[in-house]
């Protein structure tokens, strides 16, 4: 084990903390947190949409500022989705879906302020714990990842699609179909080894689908269509007021908090699944282990804490595949990945060697945003709730037009606009038919990596394919893959969204 390498990274915490706590970065974090809270609170607007819209702006400012802005939008949105879930029984973002089950009943009982306090503190703690784990574990994981070859990268990609398909939806087969369709969409256009155009039936398809419009469409426009088709007006469950920290309840939930943080981190590590699944898994575990099962679904603080700690801790876990392999752990980390590429940072096993201190810097940015959401949640919650009084019939068409503009900004072609809208329609149909969107997004994101890695591995080991199959890490990943396949088929139905 190369301990020098590990201590060098950890030793950079003080110097990077000085950069993170500088006025411009604090300013960007503040702006990002406010924007994130706005998109998180508004049903139909998601963290991905908010981040994608700000990508164009982020590229015009220094990298450190841009990353601070995007990370703050990410954490702000994931946190504030829980406020809408509590006050209106509608998840502000898909990650807050499990919070509705207990947040809304608590608000109806007149405990809205305590519930929002629990959401705020649980979110902050989840974020802090998730990133702490990432900071400690990432240097070790980078050392292991340095041993990855093309074959192992391909297997890791396949494991991601397989698990994502199994966990993200009610039915395993639908999840896998969604993932495979995503992989096939990624293969449209010029391939990277022979520069051969695949599925290029029209000249615009030679370039392939840009993934930012695809993400905007699948996560953003589809959500707008789902929300706008409903005519039922929003109603707040309680009066808006400043959040109260339920210290006694938090003290009783220490075990729940730690367990939920690990669930969030673990699910974040699996490419593509993200916070929308982790909240359900954590909620389910909290229910199974609780001594007061009868309170779940009727207003249990345990349930809120489990869901909110997990969905925020997921961002820490999601950073691991994103930074180590360049495979995004969730939708928002996919946008973060796109930003890193455009800033000239190439995530992968060599990242820590090429850019010492970069991982520490990213983790510190997440910590700063965790502090910001705690303060924003406690001090501004009553004002944030008032945002819910803005009619969605006004906000959402504007968000659609903004999304179209965001898609245009990703490549300045009319094809990106059309593909964003087309993916929006596809996403809508998938949501209506209970087909999970997350595996498709993951497929689109990693399709080219998987394809290039597999073919490069097969070309390298053309004369001796057995040598490729007996690589130790590869064997481990294949065993893992078969175990996952076995349990997915045995279970038939994923526990995620059910």
């Amino acid at each position, binding site marked *: 084990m190369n301990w020098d390498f590990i201590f060098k990274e950890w030793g950079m915490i003080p110097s990077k903390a000085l950069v993170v706590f500088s006025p411009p970065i604090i300013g960007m974090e503040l702006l990002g947190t406010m924007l994130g809270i706005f998109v998180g609170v508004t049903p139909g607007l998601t963290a991905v949409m908010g981040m994608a819209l700000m990508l164009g702006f982020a590229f015009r400012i220094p990298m450190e500022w841009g990353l601070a802005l995007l990370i703050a939008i990410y954490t702000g949105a994931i946190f504030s989705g829980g406020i809408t879930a509590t006050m209106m029984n509608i998840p502000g973002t898909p990650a807050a879906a499990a919070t509705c089950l207990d947040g809304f009943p608590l608000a109806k009982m007149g405990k809205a302020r305590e519930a929002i306090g629990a959401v705020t503190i649980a979110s902050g703690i989840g974020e802090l714990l998730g990133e702490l784990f990432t900071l400690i574990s990432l240097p070790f994981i980078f050392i292991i990842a340095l041993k990855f070859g093309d074959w192992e990268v391909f297997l890791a990609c396949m494991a991601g699609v397989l698990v994502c398909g199994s966990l993200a939806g009610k039915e395993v087969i639908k999840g896998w179909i969604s993932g495979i369709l995503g992989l096939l969409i990624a293969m449209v256009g010029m391939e990277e080894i022979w520069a051969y155009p695949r599925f290029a039936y029209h000249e615009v398809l030679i370039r392939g689908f840009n993934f930012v419009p695809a993400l905007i469409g699948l996560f953003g426009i589809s959500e707008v*269509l789902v929300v706008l088709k409903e005519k039922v007006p929003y109603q707040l469950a309680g009066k808006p007021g400043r959040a109260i920290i339920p210290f006694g309840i938090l003290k009783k939930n220490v075990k729940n908090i730690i367990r939920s943080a690990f669930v969030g981190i673990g699910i974040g590590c699996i490419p593509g699944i993200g916070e929308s699944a982790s909240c359900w898994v954590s909620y389910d575990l909290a229910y199974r282990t609780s001594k007061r099962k009868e309170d779940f679904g009727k207003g249990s603080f345990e349930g809120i804490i489990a869901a909110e700690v997990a969905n925020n801790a997921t961002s820490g876990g999601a950073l691991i595949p994103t930074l180590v392999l360049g495979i995004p752990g969730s939708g928002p980390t996919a946008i973060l990945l796109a930003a890193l590429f455009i800033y000239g940072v190439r995530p992968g096993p060599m990242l820590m060697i090429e850019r010492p201190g970069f991982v520490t810097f990213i983790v510190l940015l997440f910590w700063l945003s965790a502090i910001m959401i705690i303060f924003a949640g406690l001090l501004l919650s009553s004002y944030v709730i008032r945002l819910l009084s803005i009619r969605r019939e006004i906000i959402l068409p504007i968000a659609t037009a903004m999304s179209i503009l965001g898609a245009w900004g990703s490549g300045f072609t009319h094809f990106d*606009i059309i593909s964003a809208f087309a993916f929006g329609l596809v996403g809508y149909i998938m949501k209506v038919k209970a087909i999970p969107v997350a595996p498709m997004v993951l497929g689109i994101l990693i399709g080219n990596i998987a394809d290039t890695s597999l073919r490069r591995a097969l070309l390298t080991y053309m004369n001796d394919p057995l040598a490729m199959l007996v690589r130790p890490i590869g064997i481990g990943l294949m065993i893992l893959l078969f175990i996952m396949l076995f349990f997915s088929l045995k279970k038939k139905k994923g526990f995620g969204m059910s």
Partner: protein
Amino acid sequence: MGPGFLPLILGLVLIGLSGSLILRSVASNGQAGIVLLCRKIKEGVESRRFLIIAGWTAIYVALIGTIPFLLINFIYFFGIFLYLKVGRLLEVLLLSIGASLLVGLITPWIFDMPLP
């Protein structure tokens, strides 16, 4: 290794998985549900609402680049706000002007981006 290698494998897996879904659906007399679904779409208020909103957005997307961006945004917002009944005609007009200025002028100016 040819560029069609992985798409071929994925295509075959997709056919297998989709086939199993179709077989399961046919086995449980799922085809009867298609008529029911079509009727539901035809009669449902939400489906009609979705079709109108999506259709109007499709027209907006198709016309971007052929009509000045500010104007097409105004037309889109005016139409959709009117359909969603966000207020009286004057309110709709003012909101549409404000929204189209935000999307078609202010945002591109802030981000210094060329218009479609």
